[in-house]
């Protein structure tokens, strides 16, 4: 049966195109990673394997500084966005649809619909006047901006988890005279756990990867890893950038793999 549908669904050239697409999708990334281990400066010459570029990147104070800042922002933004997204998910699921619920959805998903450059410019304008008015130039602006655009990424996995959850356990807890808070603390929250972890990881990755909004919102000397790399790409390129990229790439892929495993468990 499956075999028959299989042969019928074959279209000429499709398989070749698809395989070529997969190859082209991964080749540049693999090249980038491979050349982070190249002892020679030039792409034209393979000078043998080395970890020198990683050593150089590690010893580079700009890279260290930017990495630390990226992590500070991503952790803060992930914590803030996941907290508000969890509350909003509890507020917008498993109750009778109420007036204004669509408005809440639109607001929460707004960062997915508005082009990044538009948000970036709007925040630049808004924060510029606050910077002048208060004199505060710190990381707060970046953390606030990142927290906001991470909300939908944290919200969606948590909501999905909530919608797939079994109501009866909470009813059972209530039947056993648990207070609403006890029910939430000991039943709902542990069940929701994987969704919250998945949402916070996604928010973390999205914050870590952001270029455009950060580029417009940051004050002088507040480079994150991506904006530092963007700045470097104007100058002459050394495999040091490849080494930094590869490390960021490895971190992202590790987190995403964990995310997929976490969210897949639910369906099994």
């Amino acid at each position: 049966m499956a075999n028959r549908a299989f042969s019928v669904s074959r279209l000429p050239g499709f398989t070749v195109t698809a395989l070529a697409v997969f190859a082209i999708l991964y080749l540049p990334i693999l090249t980038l990673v491979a050349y982070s281990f190249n002892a020679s400066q030039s792409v034209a010459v393979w000078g043998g394997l080395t970890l020198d570029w990683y050593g150089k990147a590690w010893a580079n104070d700009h890279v260290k500084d930017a990495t630390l800042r990226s992590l500070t922002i991503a952790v803060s933004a992930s914590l803030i966005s996941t907290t508000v997204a969890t509350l909003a998910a509890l507020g917008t699921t498993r109750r009778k649809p109420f007036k204004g619920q669509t408005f809440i959805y639109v607001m929460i998903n707004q960062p997915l619909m508005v082009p990044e450059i538009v948000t970036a410019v709007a925040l630049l304008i808004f924060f510029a006047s606050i910077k002048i008015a208060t004199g505060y130039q710190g990381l707060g602006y970046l953390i606030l901006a990142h927290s906001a655009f991470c909300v939908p990424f944290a919200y969606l996995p948590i909501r999905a988890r909530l919608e797939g959850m079994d109501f009866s356990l909470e009813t059972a807890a209530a039947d056993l005279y648990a207070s609403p808070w006890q029910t939430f603390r000991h039943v709902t929250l542990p069940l929701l756990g994987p969704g919250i972890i998945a949402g916070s990881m996604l928010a973390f990755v999205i914050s870590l990867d952001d270029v455009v909004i950060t580029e417009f919102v940051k004050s002088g000397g507040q480079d994150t890893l991506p904006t530092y790399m963007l700045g470097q790409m104007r100058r002459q390129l050394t495999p040091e950038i490849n080494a930094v990229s590869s490390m960021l790439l490895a971190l992202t892929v590790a987190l995403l793999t964990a995310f997929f495993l976490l969210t897949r468990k639910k369906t099994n």
Partner: protein
Amino acid sequence: MANLEDRQDARSARNGWLLSTPALVLLALAAVGPLFIMLVYSFLVPGKYGNVEWGFSTDGWTGILFSRDIFDDTVKLADAHLTIFWRSIKLSLLTTIFTFAVGFPTAWFIATRPPRARPFWLFLITIPFWTNLLIRTYAINEVIRIEGLMNTILLKLGLITEPLRIIYTDFAVFIGMTYVYLPLMVLPMFAAIDRFDMRLLEAGYDLYATRWQILRRIILPVVKPGIIAGSILVFVPSLGAYVTPRVLGGGKQMMISNFIELQFGQGRNWPLGAALSMLLLVVVTIALLIYVRYANRETSHG
């Protein structure tokens, strides 16, 4: 009894709002609210050293299409701006068409894998989708730049005698955008093809349809919502692309986003930058509304 239910509903709605409030405040403060401030700024007068001066002016908006000659104060169509708009639209359309051309066979391939293998192929498409856009753009840069991988290989093979100058052209930006936005085309099309009833193909073949007729008359109409979703998902970020034209266009082949940035740097024309951003927002919103309407019609009829 009904009264009690009403009161319960009201309490439930109030709790819903209460729980959503922190998220709403955060988004109002750092996502939605600033858009309104930007709208106001688009009607102000540019300051000499950037920022704005308080005074009403529509120059920000007229500046989108027209420029005032600094010597004789005549107003004429701003050709440079039109070039940038045309490049943005042209490259976004080309990217959409090309990602469809290669993305459709890819989505079809994934959807026709045996069910056990499907998540693996889907995962392969999803990984680039979630990895850093800057890194993927840089990876393309590594391949196509003058001393890049492609030129090195072609020179060594003797296929070319001089390196191809692709980098810092429109074509480079097109290659880059196609590369980075391809997963956005494949994923919704996969979702549509995945629901496609393969028995329709058997019926088609039984009635002596050719492969071309099968594709045109059966497959494409049925998976059309996925195609439209993918096209809008690619077109919208292409139109607002900032990183790819900056890295692969080298500052000369500007698109709308880079032009907007310019107004907040050397251009020192914040109102024009704000007006351009609003315009981009309006265009993108219209595209999304068309998509939503279309999607609703599809589901209500289908």
